[in-house]
């Protein structure tokens, strides 16, 4: 599971910020969004793998435990961040 401090450091080192209104960690440059639930559910290794995996940089990528959210949810979260 990893400790909170370790996960927090991993995310901070990778340049992620926390949005408390949506309870997500995000990085505008990497265009990746992680829900708190996903982070807590993942071990450190899985988290680091998701942080470093290459993605198409044009659109935001969501890491949620319940899978990819709907377009409506994505759109609302993206509009909060942009």
């Amino acid at each position, binding site marked *: 599971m990893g400790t*909170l401090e370790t996960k927090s450091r991993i995310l901070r080192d990778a340049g992620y910020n926390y*949005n*408390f*209104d949506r*309870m997500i960690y995000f990085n505008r440059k990497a265009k990746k969004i992680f829900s708190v*639930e996903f982070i807590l559910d993942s071990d450190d290794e899985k988290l680091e793998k998701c942080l470093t995996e290459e993605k198409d940089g044009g659109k935001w990528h969501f890491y*949620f435990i319940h899978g990819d*959210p*709907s377009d409506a949810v994505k759109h609302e*979260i993206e509009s909060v961040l942009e």
Partner: protein
Amino acid sequence: MAERTIEDRLREEYFELLPDIRRVVEHLEAKIKYCVLPISRKLDKHEQIVVKSRIKECDSALDALRRHQEGGTFDRTYPDRYSLTDLKDLAGVRVLTFPRSRWIEIDMELRQRFIDWESDPVLSYDKIDTLAFKYYGYCEEASKKVRGELQIVSMLIGLYWEVEHAAIYKPTPRLRGIADSLEMKQRDNDVHTALRAFEDEFEKQIRNQNR
């Protein structure tokens, strides 16, 4: 005319449910006070049992339901998916106990009185320590729609939660998400550990005195 939002629908639902919420809280508080009376009567001077009830306010309920969704966002393509009756804590009663040994005793007493209620203890992040005993269920005499929440927690941790709520989240519910950040969870964990150590030491001192 502007289309009704999910939030509009939920506000309407809240005020439809409010009489039920009030009945559940009153019923639950009275039942719990009655159940703990035999223990309250035999407390030592330094010991305390306090029963408190609260009704979740409308904005707080809406925000809680939104935060229950991953990503803190309602899916607006499915407006009928959401109901405040999914919240388990619209009507809540909290039993605060000091010292910690009374906490176990109260839980054992109440657990048998609410045998068919779902147990959902509040655990520390590492899932090793129980911070509070928590049960959900229906008071059939009061409502078949709204569940009641019963929480049994040590006095110091319960009061810390109250102060945190009153100082930060009650005036500005949208700040509630701050508590879900990994950094705040860690600090929260530190406070719980310190308060537990304080309670344990206090009880040890009392025991040593009585030897």
